[in-house]
């Protein structure tokens, strides 16, 4: 169950960070603009699914956040933080979802211990337009993801 890609969106849908981890560079026909369109689609989907989920869930439940969305070929794990950031992690070949719990924990870690440490605590942090590329978020995230059993 390889990790395909990870996106981080702010609460208005702007992409703060994106990285593709998939190995096969053979079908690299997607240019930057297409990928950016695709990310808008991902954000819009998660946004609307949350609304649908909120109306279908029992009213006693306060947590309406979408945890994962499984389609035929991939699963999107999503973590929404209290500040409205959305982390979306695409995993391919994940039909049986054996690692669902561990992946969710890992995403929580990616926010609590990597995003907060590297981006939010950076002295140059700007809450509206954080410059993620200038921090060591990517290095720390890569090191963490590679250490996970479900990375490949």
């Amino acid at each position, binding site marked *: 169950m390889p990790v*395909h*890609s990870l996106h981080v969106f702010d609460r208005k849908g702007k992409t703060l960070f994106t990285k*593709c981890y*998939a190995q096969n560079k053979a079908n690299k026909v997607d240019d930057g603009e297409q990928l950016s369109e*695709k990310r808008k*689609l*991902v954000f*819009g*989907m998660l946004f*609307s*699914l*949350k*609304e*649908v*989920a909120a*109306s*279908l*869930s*029992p*009213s006693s*439940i*306060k*947590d*309406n*956040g*979408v*945890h*994962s*969305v*499984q*389609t*035929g*070929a*991939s699963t*999107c794990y999503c973590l929404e933080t209290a500040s409205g950031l959305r982390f979306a992690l*695409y995993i*391919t070949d994940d039909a049986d*979802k054996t690692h*669902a719990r561990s992946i969710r924990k890992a995403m929580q870690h990616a926010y609590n211990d990597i995003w907060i440490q590297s981006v939010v605590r950076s002295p140059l942090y700007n809450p509206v337009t954080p410059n993620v590329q200038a921090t060591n978020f990517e290095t720390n995230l890569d090191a963490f993801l590679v250490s996970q059993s479900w990375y490949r």
Partner: protein
Amino acid sequence: MVFLHLFVVNRSGGLIHHRHLSNKAPKIGTNEWLRIGSTFHSLHAIAAEASPVRLPGGKNSNDGIEEMVTGGMVLRSFQTRTGIKFVLTAEPQTPDLGQVLKEIYVLYTECVLKDPFYELEMPIRSELFVHAVDALVERVQNAVSISPTKHR
């Protein structure tokens, strides 16, 4: 471990059947239901489009949302070869939703499609179908409560 709602969306996104399966399910008005049905229909298509990898077969494949897990419920969708979507929601951790959906599809073919007065793509008003689904849900829930499985 309780089923919440069942709804059926036809090929063009119209809601043709909706009902709640337990008292825990929130009450939803008819207009709201129609909205949820068509929103889900579009999101089903968008999810397949947004996924970085697709099932082989292009437009003919049954790609789209298969399962969505949120804080308060789990939603399972089953799309038939003819494009009808059966969607079942339940409390989190309910196992075998996919199997139940397939049995509901069998009941649909038995009770609805074989009804000589039923027109395709039109709302399902078959009492036989409603009773058969009730019986199925009761059977599944009793089976689960009698033999507590590993699923928590």
